[in-house]
């Protein structure tokens, strides 16, 4: 898992630099993709659950669909709300 997280670190660093010159809409997309990559790592290492599986499926729809599908912000809103519900349901176990 260390290798996977280390590569994710590289992705975050190179994204941070690249986004300065890329279209504004790439910002939310890049962070959603980063969330997708983190969720993949969680799934691969047995740390997933129903929430992470569903979130990954929704992110995949966005990142593998046509370019500029434009639903990235909507998806980020929705996943943020679902994440809040997830936190509440988990209570102090998180």
């Amino acid at each position: 898992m260390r290798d996977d997280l280390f590569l994710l670190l590289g992705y975050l660093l190179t994204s941070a630099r690249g986004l300065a010159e890329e279209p504004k809409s790439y910002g939310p997309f890049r962070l959603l993709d980063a969330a997708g990559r983190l969720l993949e790592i969680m799934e691969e290492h047995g740390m997933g659950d129903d929430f992470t599986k569903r979130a990954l499926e929704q992110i995949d729809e966005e990142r593998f669909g046509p370019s500029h599908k434009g639903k990235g912000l909507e998806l980020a809103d929705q996943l943020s709300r679902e994440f809040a519900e997830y936190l509440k349901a988990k209570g102090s176990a998180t």
Partner: protein
Amino acid sequence: MEVLEAIYSRRSVRKFTAEPIPDALLSKMVEAALQAPSGGNAQPWAFLVIREPSCMRQLRALAPGIIGKPTAVVVICLDKKRATTLGGSLDEMMAGVDIGLAAQNLLLSAHALGLGGCAIASFHPSSVKSFLDLPEGIDPVLLVALGYPAQLPSSPGRMDLREVCFFERWGVTEGAR
């Protein structure tokens, strides 16, 4: 596959199966890229084909634009020495155009061979150059992610011809000849 059919049905594919691409097909696609038009026939390009999964995993960390997990990536590089062969001030711009044309040939040939691909400019150029040990004068310009499609996206849509194409004078969209 007919040329027009290939042009119209090609999509940017970002999700791939794990099936590796045979070397013979990779060579065929790069050969197709070499056939692209080139200003003054300078051919200011060089290609580096990445196939090893471990190298690919690491490259993805330096190229955020590689969204899925391709089984090959062709790094299209600018060969600065060849780009300046003609000695004009437009050399660099022309080299960029040439590389774009080569990338399109690569993508269309991939599509014709049952593969999918996506051109990627979102990567950290100096990190990629260093990671791949590219020599002085050879710079990465475009990455083309390739693989067998696991998902074919629908068309993102294109502008209407009348919005962007005029005849004889700007703004004239049609007229009897």
